[in-house]
């Protein structure tokens, strides 16, 4: 029972991080219909700046700079590369983001070198013990931070003018334009928010607790798990991204414990396949709404 509770907290902690990534992925898709495969590289940009600056600025200062840098990098990708290619179809733009991802990832890996550092200083490798329970501090903090950010995001998405504009544009770009909603502004904020969430996620991902992967290709590969999270939740659903992230985190933790560690990554994709066979548009994806 204790092991299960441990797995539950650690799995949900990881799931909250996946949910942050999947949310970013989904809002870019909603605003632009582009599948952003460069999301993993945004994670690395944020992480790299934290690694470079934490001695000079302290961990917290470096974390803020990393989050802002990831957000601005996302905006730069949209403004400099995607915005000028509006006549291209969405598949071409998705391929373009793969190109961006390769370039940025290789550059960060080259700069970091062979060390593959961890960046989660204040909480990494300091487990919390409550009786017989041992919980990774990183995952516990990730769960709290994730819950706060996700709640704030979902509330803003539902109730703020930004959220209404975003949802209107996601549903009908022309009608939104006719309401005076500025498409370019909505798109820019979607990329900014997605980049910032990736910048937060890496603070938990490049730690010993999370995966032992460090700042490099390993963390980039983990970021890719946000894709099945977003897809099984429903590619155009923010709530789906959150549930998808949590499902992925729990699947990974439980299958690593009860089946095998090597199997845990495949288990995530197996769950995605099963969900898609039963519900092709994902758990919360859009189905046509019509009056009968």
């Amino acid at each position, binding site marked *: 029972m204790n092991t299960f509770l441990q797995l539950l907290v650690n799995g949900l902690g990881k799931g909250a991080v996946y949910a942050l990534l999947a949310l970013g992925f989904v809002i870019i898709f909603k605003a632009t219909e582009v599948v952003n495969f460069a999301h993993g590289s945004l994670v690395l940009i944020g992480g790299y700046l934290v690694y470079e600056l934490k001695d000079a600025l302290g961990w917290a200062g470096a974390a803020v700079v990393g989050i802002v840098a990831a957000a601005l990098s996302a905006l730069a990708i949209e403004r400099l590369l995607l915005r000028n290619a509006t006549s291209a179809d969405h598949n071409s733009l998705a391929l373009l983001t793969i190109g961006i991802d390769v370039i940025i990832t290789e550059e960060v890996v080259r700069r970091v070198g062979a060390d593959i550092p961890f960046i989660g200083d204040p909480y990494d490798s300091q487990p919390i013990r409550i009786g017989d329970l041992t919980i990774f501090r990183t995952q516990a903090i990730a769960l709290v931070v994730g819950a706060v950010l996700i709640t704030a995001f979902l509330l803003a998405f539902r109730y703020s003018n930004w959220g*209404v504009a975003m949802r209107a544009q996601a549903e009908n770009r022309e009608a939104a334009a006719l*309401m005076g909603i500025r498409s370019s502004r909505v798109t820019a904020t979607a990329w900014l928010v997605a980049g910032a969430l990736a910048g937060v996620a890496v603070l938990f991902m490049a730690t010993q607790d999370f995966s032992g992967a460090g700042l490099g290709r390993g963390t980039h590969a983990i970021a890719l798990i946000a894709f099945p999270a977003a897809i099984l939740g429903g590619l155009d659903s923010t709530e789906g991204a959150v549930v998808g992230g949590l499902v992925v985190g729990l699947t990974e933790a439980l299958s690593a414990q009860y089946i095998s560690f090597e199997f845990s990554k495949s288990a995530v994709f197996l769950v995605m396949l099963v969900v898609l066979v039963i519900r092709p548009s994902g758990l919360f994806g859009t189905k046509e709404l019509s009056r009968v």
Partner: protein
Amino acid sequence: MLSARGLSVRYGRSVEALSGVDLEVPADGVLAVLGGNGAGKSTLLRAVSGTLPLHRGAVSAGEIVFDGERIDRLDPALIVRAGVVAVPEGRQVFARMTVEENLRAGGLGARSAEARSSARERIERLFPVLTERAGQRAGLLSGGEQQMLAIGRALMSDPRLLLLDEPSLGLAPQMVGRIARVIREIHEQGTAVVLVEQNATMALQVADHAVVLEVGRVALSGPAAELAASDDVQRLYLGGHAESQAQAESEEAEARAHRSTRTLSRWTG
């Protein structure tokens, strides 16, 4: 108020949808734009509202001027800020959002919070049903209610010129009559209207002036009453509709009389 001078529009390189169109919308009037399928009516509205690029179209010649300023190169959001708002063909309400959220989205283009709140009061008076259904998803409203929502949503930014693209499309005759009354009311409250319609009977009853587009050119224009009386318009646009609407009205009157006298047999005991 709004004028188009020598307006030509192309989609891609080869399709010219409008060519050399001149028209004038007076500040206190309702202008009907009539024409069959492919005449260029919707293209005209897209050109005025700035949404041609979303359909890969562009103004290739001429200009559109609103209150002395050219608007044919502006972003759609700036055209809304200037006071020109369009209700697109097929209503295009945000189906997954509630009625309330649709109206809120419409208010995002308003010039000020005061304009938005007075627009809201106006919509509550014009369409009380939208207040009743505020929490309902727009996709689940009836066709007529969706049309009211589409018009209400456009009014939320307090426009000075409202463009309506085929508001009667797919609606029952009674609902068409209701929409026509609403358009007159909107106009009487001080908003100029451009009404693009295939239903010429309704459009000419509502409008002060009208133009007839044929294959992207203005074929006829003048006061609505004169156009309604002209042989060409009678033959081309009024025959079918006049018949069907008159027929619909007489059928409805008959049905009403029938309802008031008839008792269902199973309740007679």
